[in-house]
């Protein structure tokens, strides 16, 4: 497995104080915040920073990690193996049995697997975090994001999701499992909504039920349309005569082909609403609407006939000033 230099990841010396580690962690957390950073690898960097902080901010884990030294000289970064019983004499803040949170490296899982699961328990020391009750305890929910196409919301979809979970081996070490889960996505889903997969979270304890997997829905960006709630917006390109004279035009919408009546005098920026043609309703929630944002496309003046036609227009609108506030009036 690859040796992780947690000090290098946080950009601190091995002699760094707790305060320096905390400051370096916050600096990295701001820089690579997954919701804000534009870095392509922000998620991975944030996971590394979190992991480094998990180890270096905990005196027991840091002492154990320091005892490893660094990657053996001459050995490739991917060939690191901890010495047998490397952690003898160190006592980590252990936690309840169950699957580890996803997102830790193999290096971390191998060294601190049991302690990794202590993340939730460690929060117990922080005012406001859940304390584990005695007796049966429901497993923790897992949270993930799933990217869908807008069309999936119209028709429903089936997706395969790769999930990472873990179990304890005979020595109490975490062993990672990866498996694929096939999920049926119901139609009518909108962005930001959650899909619950019951029982796919952490196992329960002492007879408690397993937690759930909650998938937050995101729509893959699509140049053809965008969703706001259940309403969908789509650009409708019109020729100048279609926009000004009105008429019936055929439009490819997410729900299929539609014949749309364009009112005469439709100027760019105007919206046409097709009621109920947005994302389909689900449960008690009604379907959204489809908004067609009108855009007028000018034909190129690339021939004698076209240039003559534009010349005719110029003559027909002698008072038209495109730069006045009331263009066209």
């Amino acid at each position, binding site marked *: 497995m690859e040796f992780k230099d947690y000090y290098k990841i946080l950009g601190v010396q091995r002699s760094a104080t707790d305060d320096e580690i905390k400051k370096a962690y916050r600096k990295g957390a701001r820089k690579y915040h997954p919701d804000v950073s534009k870095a392509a690898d922000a998620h991975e960097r944030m996971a590394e920073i979190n992991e480094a902080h998990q180890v270096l901010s905990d005196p027991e884990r840091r002492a154990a990690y320091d005892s490893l030294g660094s990657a053996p000289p001459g050995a490739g970064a991917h060939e690191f193996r901890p010495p047998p019983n490397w952690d003898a004499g160190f006592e980590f803040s252990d936690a309840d049995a169950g699957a580890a949170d996803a997102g830790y490296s193999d290096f971390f899982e191998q060294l601190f697997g049991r302690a990794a699961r202590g993340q939730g328990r460690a929060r117990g020391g922080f005012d406001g975090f859940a304390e584990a009750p005695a007796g049966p305890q429901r497993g923790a929910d897992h949270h993930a994001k799933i990217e869908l196409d807008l069309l999936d919301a119209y028709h429903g979809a089936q997706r395969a999701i790769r999930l990472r979970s873990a179990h304890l081996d005979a020595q109490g070490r975490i062993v990672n499992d990866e498996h694929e889960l096939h999920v049926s996505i119901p139609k009518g889903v909108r962005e930001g909504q*959650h899909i619950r997969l*019951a029982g796919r979270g952490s196992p329960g304890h002492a007879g408690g039920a397993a937690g759930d997997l909650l998938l937050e829905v995101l729509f893959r960006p699509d140049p053809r349309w965008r969703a706001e709630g259940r309403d969908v917006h789509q650009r409708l390109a019109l020729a100048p005569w279609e926009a000004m004279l009105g008429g019936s035009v055929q439009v490819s919408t997410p729900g299929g082909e539609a014949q749309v009546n364009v009112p005469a005098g439709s100027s760019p920026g105007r919206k046409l609403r097709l009621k109920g043609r947005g994302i389909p309703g689900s449960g*008690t929630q009604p379907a959204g609407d489809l908004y067609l944002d009108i855009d007028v496309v000018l034909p190129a003046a690339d021939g004698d006939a076209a240039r003559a036609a534009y010349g005719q227009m110029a003559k027909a609108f002698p008072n038209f000033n495109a730069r006045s506030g009331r263009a066209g009036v």
Partner: protein
Amino acid sequence: MQQGELLEGQCFSLEELAQSCGVAPRWVQERVEAGVLRVDTASGDWRFDSVCVVRARRLLQLETTFDADPQLAALTADLIEELMALRRRLAALEAG
């Protein structure tokens, strides 16, 4: 093939939201009272929609990472949410 359940409307109780975020109900209660988490009280009970899970987890992450005051974390979460919405609109405009 497992059928996903679409979470509609105010689908979480106080306890369920807290459990899903790994916090004590009191943590959620304090943030509702501080006005940084939105609650629906129409039924007489506190109910939360599933979007609240994302916001609560974001607040929690900001508070713990930066030892942030809940109002400061909420301000940051507001800005993050607006940034994400504006980025989506910009992407749509650029694509159009």
